[in-house]
């Protein structure tokens, strides 16, 4: 179950315990438990549950110039649905979602390569691949902007060796969204790699050895053993990836200057939310937009769970 180095106590527990429910279901109601939960419960009430109700309320109101909220019914929702920029941002966000998923196949391939018997330096590779994920997103955005720079950037220079024309990658509306998406893939691959390495480790080596005896080559073994047995992990990772990409904000905020001509073509839903809520003071519409985002996340997650039955292989 856990991937932590089990303590001796935990090992003994695994042997002696039969139920997984922790404390014995006793008749005693331990009242001191409420004291244990109270601090967190209070924090959640103040900073999570109450704000959630507030946002719901905001989404049906208009924020006046002198403060105070006026009830306006569903007008905010109608405004959101009719707004072209919302649909554009939704389209961009879905593009980020699809591009972001490309990190998964890369991570799976690397995890499989790292799973070779007797390979040296596995932990060093893992450490190096993970570094972009740990690094401050602002630093990541700034260095990639510099690499993409149209006049003095290294990427244009390298591409020119292969005869590719110079381009202003981040300010050209036709390439900006892909330039940002590339950085997303680059910075999250290491994270999924760690998840898949744990998954690949769980596949018994005997399967591979048996397949090898039957004359299956590396590609065949990958397709018939690794992929099917990894599919629950792939499913988990793709749900996480989708939920995270739908809420993407940091990189775009950093990489796109306000005067950038491609800003409309790269704006994400959360980016638009931030602009409405804290720059244009359209709090009601921003709240409605946030609920729309939650709806999209819920719908796509539900869809994922529906489709998984067809391709996820639970041993």
């Amino acid at each position: 179950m856990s991937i932590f180095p089990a303590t001796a106590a935990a090992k003994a527990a695994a042997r002696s315990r039969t139920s997984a429910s922790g404390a014995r279901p006793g008749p005693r109601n331990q009242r001191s438990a409420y004291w244990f939960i109270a601090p967190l419960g209070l924090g959640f009430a103040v900073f999570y549950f109450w704000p959630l109700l507030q946002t719901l309320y905001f989404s049906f109101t208009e924020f006046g110039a002198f403060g105070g909220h006026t009830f306006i019914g569903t007008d905010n929702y109608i405004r959101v649905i009719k707004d072209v920029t919302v649909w554009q941002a939704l389209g961009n966000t879905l593009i980020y979602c699809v591009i972001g998923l490309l990190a998964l196949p890369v991570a799976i391939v690397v995890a499989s390569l790292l799973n070779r018997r007797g390979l040296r330096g596995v932990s060093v590779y893992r450490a190096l691949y993970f570094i972009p994920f740990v690094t401050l997103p602002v630093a990541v955005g700034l260095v990639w902007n510099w690499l993409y720079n149209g006049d003095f950037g290294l990427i244009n220079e390298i591409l020119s060796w292969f005869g590719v024309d110079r381009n202003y990658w981040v300010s050209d509306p036709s390439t900006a969204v892909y330039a940002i998406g590339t950085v997303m893939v680059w910075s999250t691959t290491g994270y999924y790699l760690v998840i898949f390495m744990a998954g690949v480790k769980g596949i018994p080596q005997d399967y591979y050895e048996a397949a090898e005896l039957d004359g299956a080559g590396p590609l065949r073994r990958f397709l018939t053993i690794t992929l099917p047995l990894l599919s629950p992990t792939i499913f988990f990772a793709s749900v996480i990836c989708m939920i995270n990409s739908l809420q993407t904000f940091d990189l775009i905020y950093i990489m796109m200057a306000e005067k950038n001509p491609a800003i409309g073509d790269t704006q994400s839903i959360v980016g638009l939310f931030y602009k409405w809520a804290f720059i244009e003071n359209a709090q009601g519409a921003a709240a409605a937009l946030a609920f729309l985002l939650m709806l999209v996340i819920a719908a796509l997650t539900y869809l994922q769970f529906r489709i998984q039955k067809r391709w996820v292989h639970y041993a």
Partner: protein
Amino acid sequence: MPDTSGTHATPTTRKRFNSGSVATHAVLSFGALVMVFPFLWQLLTALKTLAETSQVPPTFLPKDWNWDSFEEVFTALPFREMLTNSLLNTVGRTVGQLVFCSLAAYAFARMQFRGRNVLFALFLSVLMVPSSLLVLPQYDIIQSLGLLNSAPALFLPGMFSAFGTFMLRQFFLTLPRELEEAARIDGAGSFRIFWSIMLPLIRPALAALAVITAMWSWNDLLWPLIVNTDPEKMPISAGLTSLEGQYETNYPVMMAGSLIASLPMLVVYLFLQRHFVQSVALSGSKN
């Protein structure tokens, strides 16, 4: 970190020599280079003069190693204050989560009380909510407490975490019941058992939660941008973005600032790698 043998296959004592391992190392090393090269380029750029960065074609190594940009960052921004704010934010959230989540997780895992499952489900539902649904009212709360542009504004909401509670609960569940019972017979109270017996046993889980929380706190951008708009009160994650406006084309200074800002988390990561890996393998989403 174990030492590595570059890109050449090492002969092993296995029966069949793996001709594929050279190719494997070649592919993996290329990938690793792609992952690390941008940071190398960041460093090389930081060491160049402004004039040298606007040369076509670009130079690879700096003509003369120039460290001025690293000093300039501290005058271009209230950089020292920003780093301090990041540190306060990180420590506040991490300590808060360790305390609040471990207390609640212990009760959910090891105690019997009415409404336990309902409460736990309610707490877990926090995981499902995108942060954008909460920040408007959260901002209002911070404002009404008079805390805008302060350190507590940065870490207050982030001290409470459903993910942390869930993760620690999983570990509390694996501990043997005999320990608790023996302590109870000796007359120890609930808190005493939690504090001196149970908590030390889940140290690896606490470490994993601490590093992942520290990383999220240090790197968080949206919330600090909202509550702390005064540069003196910004953490470095938000502060660096203002360099873009002022120093739009001064790449050496921007790269130097980025390097210094990402260094603390990188050092923590290199020293506590194991805990990062464990928390990720267990974790789900970033929120």
